[in-house]
């Protein structure tokens, strides 16, 4: 077994007196698609926020490719190869789709203020390469036709896809997706399955996704981790997790569990 690409070790987070995450462990192997599910308030988004550096854990450690990222700022963690998207659309509304993608290249480009202001050659070449790469990234998600649309003119589902492309263009090792399928219609959901698999297979990116659309989780995830009230209550392949009694209890309650197993 190879070393995990992302390793969350015994992480706890409290806000005030409320323990949102309580000794959570998570090991994600390179090339894996990991599902992170659980009822509302289970701490899933907090988990992503801790990994991406928005919140610091009270205790515990997080390793990305063997390097501890606890205590680093989100932009530093992004540079180390962690990308993410958010529960609500965070597309830059004042830019076109193409420019949004070029912004995703921020940490892979380096032109400074002087080079840009004086339009120096090195900067121009970098900028041309960035535009070319942004167009390829748009093509990858099948949205080339939208390059020059303002970010605000896209449908909600399209915005989500562009946000994913904007993260991917930064060549991350791991991408965290917070409910990426929200707002997708049922027939686009199948395309979305394919997109997630292509991201893993063609870009070699490891994915961790929070998702409430259980069908998507069951279809694409290799492993699923279930959180409930800040604790990790189950982990394993989707089918095993689906039949785990603790998971059913967390979602449906005890009484229903009895009925579920009776039927």
């Amino acid at each position: 077994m190879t070393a995990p690409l992302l390793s969350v070790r015994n992480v706890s987070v409290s806000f005030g007196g409320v323990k949102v995450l309580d000794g959570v462990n998570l090991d994600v192997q390179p090339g894996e698609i990991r599902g992170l599910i659980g009822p509302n308030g289970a701490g899933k988004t907090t988990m992503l926020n801790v990994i991406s550096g928005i919140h610091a854990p009270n205790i515990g450690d997080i390793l990305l490719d063997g390097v501890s990222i606890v205590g680093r700022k989100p932009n530093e963690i992004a540079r180390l190869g962690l990308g993410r998207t958010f529960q609500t659309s965070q597309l830059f509304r004042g830019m076109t789709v193409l420019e949004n993608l070029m912004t995703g290249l921020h940490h892979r480009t380096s032109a400074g203020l002087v080079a840009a202001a004086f339009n120096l050659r090195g900067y121009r070449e970098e900028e041309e390469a960035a535009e070319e790469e942004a167009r390829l990234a748009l093509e990858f998600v099948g949205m080339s036709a939208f390059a020059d649309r303002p970010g605000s003119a896209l449908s909600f589902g399209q915005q989500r896809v562009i946000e994913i492309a904007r993260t991917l263009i930064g060549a991350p090792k791991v991408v965290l997706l917070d409910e990426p399928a929200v707002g997708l219609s049922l027939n686009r959901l199948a395309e979305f399955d394919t997109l997630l698999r292509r991201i893993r297979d063609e870009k070699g990116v490891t994915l961790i996704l929070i998702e409430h659309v259980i069908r998507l989780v069951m279809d694409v995830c290799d492993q699923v981790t279930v959180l409930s009230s800040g604790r990790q209550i189950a982990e394993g392949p989707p089918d095993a997790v689906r039949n785990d009694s603790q998971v059913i209890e967390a979602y449906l309650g005890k009484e229903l569990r009895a009925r579920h197993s009776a039927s």
Partner: protein
Amino acid sequence: MTLFGRRNVLMVLALTAAIAPSFVNDYYLFVANTILIYVLLSIGLNILLGYTGQLAFANAAMFGIGAYATGLLQVRVGWPFWLAFPSGALIATAVGLAISLPALRLRGLYLAVSTLAFAQFTQWVFLNWESVTYGAGGFKTPPISFAPLPVSKQAGLYYLTLILVVVLYVLAQNAVRSRIGRAFIAVRDSEIAAQSLGVDLLRYKALAFGISGFYAGVAGGLYSALLNFVSPEGYDLFQMVLQKAMVVVGGLGSIVGSLLGAGAIITALEALRTVKGLQEIAFGAILLGFILFMPNGIIGALKAKVRGWEEPVHRSRRRNSPPGPAAVTTPRSEVRP
């Protein structure tokens, strides 16, 4: 390029500005010079407010610091204008960067209040540190000379201002359509997403404060030379309102909008100068009208109605090709693994 596109209109404006001294009187030259100085101020403020989204109120103070530093270095230290002026601009830049340090941790209204406090503090220093600043009465600066160039002081200063405006306009325009400008807009539109893409919030906010400080400092030095006089009331809260008005009327997040806004506001104020009392009312009405009916400013209307005013924040190599099809023809096999 379309006939009435931005490039052509700016060329005509620049040419008109270049030959203006030969056919206008001293008063109109003074007004034109004032407009040019305000163009610098509103470009700097627009980068901070319009592009980076930082609701700061320190621009008038930095304008004042540029003017006071340029003036006092001449009067108190005896430096020539040519040394005092760039030094004043650098001092204003340094102050801009310095106030950004505490301001970086604040957002929205908190940033507004803290920078407002800084502006009031600056006023207080101008007024009360009499042994250095000459207090409320202000002080006269020595008249500058352009010898051996064969131009009068007015024309010389006008051309100096015009050259600086053209250069600083082009530099700002280049900067905002680079990765720097995109980082500014990213910070404005979504701090959390900007960070997740590797944009260092503190660095880019500080950079925007520094740039606006530099533009305000250059404007301050030129303004002290234009008036030959520096006093606190030129750099007070009304000055700040004036600059904000220019940015809003011209259009937030647009360099050319800053130019149009400065021109429109100064022209309106000068036109109304003869009817005292009406000036403030008309100024208020203009602002209200823009906020209600043209929230995107003059540039918003131009972009909607006239071709050739778009301001992409990247340098497109395919500006004239129709969007889409060109990219689609690339075979899938060329996609990076």
